[in-house]
């Protein structure tokens, strides 16, 4: 099961990077979201995958009798999902406000903070 999932993680990373190389803000945003999911899936896969065995220890034992799914990666992913979703929400608003304010969603045309052709600083008085 790890093999196909690893391939899937690779596909996620590849499409995320492809989207983020675009100069359209919405595509970059989609890329960031896919990247977050790629990382989540990566943690999930790295935590060893066991099918249909809940991590429940029988009442008379101190350790689980057979290998069970590791709950910790899922807790980590849950945290990461909450974080990445809230960031996505923030970025979506930020990008929309930027589009409203600057009138463009192309990063190549956003020059408010860094003006192109900034002349060299004065050399003397």
């Amino acid at each position: 099961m790890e093999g196909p999932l690893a391939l899937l993680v690779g596909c996620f990373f590849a499409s995320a990077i492809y989207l983020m190389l675009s100069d359209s803000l919405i595509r970059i945003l989609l890329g960031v979201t896919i990247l977050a999911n790629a990382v989540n899936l990566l943690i999930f896969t790295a935590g060893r995958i066991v099918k249909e065995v809940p991590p429940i220890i029988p009442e008379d034992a101190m350790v689980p009798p057979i290998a069970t799914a590791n709950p910790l990666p899922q807790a980590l992913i849950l945290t990461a999902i909450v974080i990445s979703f809230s960031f996505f929400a923030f970025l979506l608003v930020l990008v929309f406000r930027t589009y409203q304010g600057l009138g463009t969603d192309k990063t190549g045309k956003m020059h408010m903070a860094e003006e192109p052709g900034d002349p060299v600083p004065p050399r003397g008085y």
Partner: protein
Amino acid sequence: MAESAGHAAVDVASAMVTAPIAPLDAIIVAPTLITLLFGAVLLMARKRPETQAPLGIAGLLLLTAATAGILARVVTGGPLTMTMGSWLPPFGITFAVDVLGASFALVSSVVALVVGVFASRGLRRVESRYGFYPFLLLMMAGVCNAFLTGDIFNLYVWFEVMLIASFGLIVLGNSKEQLDGAVRYAVLNLLAAAFFLTATGYLYGALGTLNMAEIAIKLREGVPGMPVNTITALYILGFGMKAAAFPVAFWLPASYHTPSPSAGAVFAGLLTKVGAYALLRTLIMLMPSEEALYDTFLTAIAIGTMLLGSLGAMGHSDFRRILGYLVISGIGVILAGLAIGTAEGLAGGIFYAFHSMIVMSALYLASGLIGQLGGSQDLRKLGGLYGASPLLAGLTLTLVFSVSALPPFSGFWAKILVTEAAMVDGRWWLAGIVLGTGLLNALASGRAFTQIFWRGGPSGTPDGAEKSVPGEIPGEDRAVLFGSLAALTLMSLVIGLWPSPLMRLAEAGAAGLLDPTLYIRAVFGGAS
């Protein structure tokens, strides 16, 4: 635990910390409590702008007291640790603080306190109404806890807390310039955090633990088949991006000049240093690598960062963008200390980080006052400010000397340590670049100073003529604004004249990174 299987009653002692925590040791969670509590209260009181500054400053004062208490406790009693929910480490989330973390936390909360005082008069009304202080306190929650945590996934969480609060700070004011800067800052920092999380996922997959002390033990023993190189490379990329290291530094000069001076000051002083701290923690303490490859790689990054910072500072005419490049140049010196990797080199890098936190924040505050007086940040449009405010000129000149690492200011000792460590290590060329970029920084900041303060007016003013400056600083604000700027400047001078206390802290921090035995023993002390 296997031998107790079969008992019906669960033996809690083998899974939980049952010994009561000494009340004084609970101070390790005080910064978390103070920042989150005050952040929440400030958020609730946002409809009453007159309460924001006093409450915020009170919170930052308490935070400074708490971090000072932690540092005092750590210096006398060794690393301090607490595991949440009483689970035995490595099962619970551990907070562990050594001299390095405690001193970073103290310096950053002092800087935040001074900036908080400055902001009480330095903010425009709209900025304090829309939540400068809540964001500042919540950002400090991220910054301080990143220094205090002993769990690498928890470090990621605090990184994100710091990031989301800084997003709030950078867009306060809502100008077009800020939106543009914020998009660059937000996307690239999120990307950095994603790389950091990827590396952490791999680390967990390979080691099965997230506890920094246990990671340090396991990696020192060696784990067969462990992809150490991949993980290290991802950490260098993720934290390097956060710290603004070459070649992933370009988001910093594109965004740090856009927020208000008060927000810019905490950004420049604190955020990049958290990245540098995380690099120190992971590369030196967690995964000490003997491979020459990393040595060369890190040295190249350090040199690139120093050169990019200094040359960028030479090539710009916007004062705040020059400062952004000077921040990057400082990060280069810290990375040079990290690349040398000896106790002296690390101590120099850590000392430089303390110096840079104080001086870069002060310079951004000064840039705020310059903007208020001169009505611009552009060197071509500024001039004649010496006549308008000799005090500001004096303070800025002091900071220019300090950032150029001239004696008797704090930067001097830090650079001496790094240069000496490089020479001792046989890397005279690295020492040369550290000193050479210091000269470039002196040229860039000195030129900015002469153009802003010494000439009679903006470019085109005839020699000898004096033009009046367009803005002024209201009399009732002067004491607070100049007082807080002077406080940071004075700190740099005092550290320069009496460097031994801070140097001892830096040396103890470096020693703790190179030999984390005490740190590990503090975390697992209850278990053995």
